[in-house]
């Protein structure tokens, strides 16, 4: 071959290669065709070379892989069923109508707190401003509903305030996220309890929701957390305290959205007998 012809051939082939490279980077189908040709022509040779035996060991190994993936899937389902059973057996959900859901996404808000997305939406019967509970207690409330998902404002988010009853006496108060101007430092993830009436909470008191009209947004009697510390007396009328949430918000997985039950039947009147039971 003449040197000139050879140079021309080189230029042509290099240009073709460059064109194919650009086509591949641009995602054209022609490049995939070339790729398939490579596999089609040389794949059988490679199989023969690597001596891939279609024998018993091969089949057993394949079966092994299939069974392993099956076991993993079964374990996952069992775990899910166990957690759902826990949730349904929990005292938090006894006697309530609920929609089970799973957390599919979680977002940490730059302002603090977090919101999570559940895989249940309005088609599943979830309404905005429903309570969301886990087996341990209150998780938060539904703020946005789409047909198949819903967003939940988790307890402790900025702007989430829950009316509560504290301790055996049922003192009224509110639980909110620790505000930036809080006089007392509180551990990360804990909540601030402020009482409405002049009373002093005790460490170990259980904090439960007060409940709202028609159970919207919070149903009554859900466990919010436990008082872990009481702020020192600085002369304020009502004392504040630190509450550790009952639910670990970092690890919530299976939850239940409580379906609010509206009362349709009027309450029956009762007559006091004057005799203590």
């Amino acid at each position, binding site marked *: 071959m003449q040197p000139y012809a050879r140079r021309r*051939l*080189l230029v042509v*082939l*290099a240009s073709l290669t*460059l064109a*194919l490279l650009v086509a*591949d980077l641009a995602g054209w189908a022609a*490049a995939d065709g070339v790729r398939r040709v*490579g596999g089609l022509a*040389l794949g059988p040779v490679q199989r023969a070379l690597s001596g891939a035996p279609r024998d018993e060991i091969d089949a057993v190994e394949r079966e092994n892989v299939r069974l392993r993936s099956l076991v993993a899937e079964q374990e996952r389902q069992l775990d899910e069923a166990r957690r759902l059973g826990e949730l349904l057996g929990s005292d938090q959900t006894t006697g309530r109508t609920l929609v089970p859901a799973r957390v599919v996404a979680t977002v940490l808000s730059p302002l603090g707190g977090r919101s999570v997305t559940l895989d249940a939406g309005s088609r599943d019967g979830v309404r905005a401003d429903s309570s969301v509970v886990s087996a341990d207690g209150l998780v938060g409330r539904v703020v946005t509903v789409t047909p198949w998902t819903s967003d939940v404002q988790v307890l402790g988010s900025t702007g989430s305030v829950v009316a509560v009853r504290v301790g055996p006496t049922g003192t009224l108060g509110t639980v909110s996220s620790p505000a930036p101007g809080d006089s007392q430092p509180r551990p990360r993830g804990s909540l601030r309890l402020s009482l409405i009436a002049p009373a002093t909470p005790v460490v170990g008191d259980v904090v439960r929701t007060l409940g709202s009209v028609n159970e919207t947004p919070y149903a009554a009697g859900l466990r919010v957390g436990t008082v872990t510390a009481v702020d020192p007396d600085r002369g304020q009328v009502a004392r504040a305290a630190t509450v550790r949430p009952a639910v670990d918000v970092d690890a919530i997985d299976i939850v239940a959205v409580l379906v609010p039950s509206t009362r349709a039947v009027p309450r029956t009147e009762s007559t006091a007998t004057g005799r203590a039971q």
Partner: protein
Amino acid sequence: MRPTLLGVLRTAYVLVAALFSATLLPRLGVAPRWVPDLVLVGVVATAVLRGPVHGALAGLLAGWVAELVPPVGSPLGLAPLVMMVGGLVGGLFRRPASRSRLRAPAALLAAAGVVLVGRLASAVLAEGSVDLGGSVMRLASTVAVGVLLLPAFVALDRALVRRRLG
């Protein structure tokens, strides 16, 4: 153009080398970082005897063979272009008057360096990080294998040309 024995042998070598380094060596337990670039050795053996243009052409075609051996490279066509430049650089080492034994390995080192730079550059562009140690090991193993193979290739090439078979 009639196919010559030399041309057939070269094509066969490139094909076998590509299959060998993609399929057989990993199967035999050779770590990927130690697999030598056997195709490049063949390209340099041609380039150092025939000059840059021939070397570039051989590099481009051999690069395509190596690229099409599954797993097919991505992006398609980058490896042939890099190999083409490697062959071109290897061809620059041609000195018809000299018969020094060191020239072919030196050409291989230069060509392997070009291929190394090309791979590293594309890896940086594509992934943002490179396995520098592994690449240098691959270069070392390529040169080591080349030192053993190149004299035999060059001698075979010369013998076939002398007998009008190339």
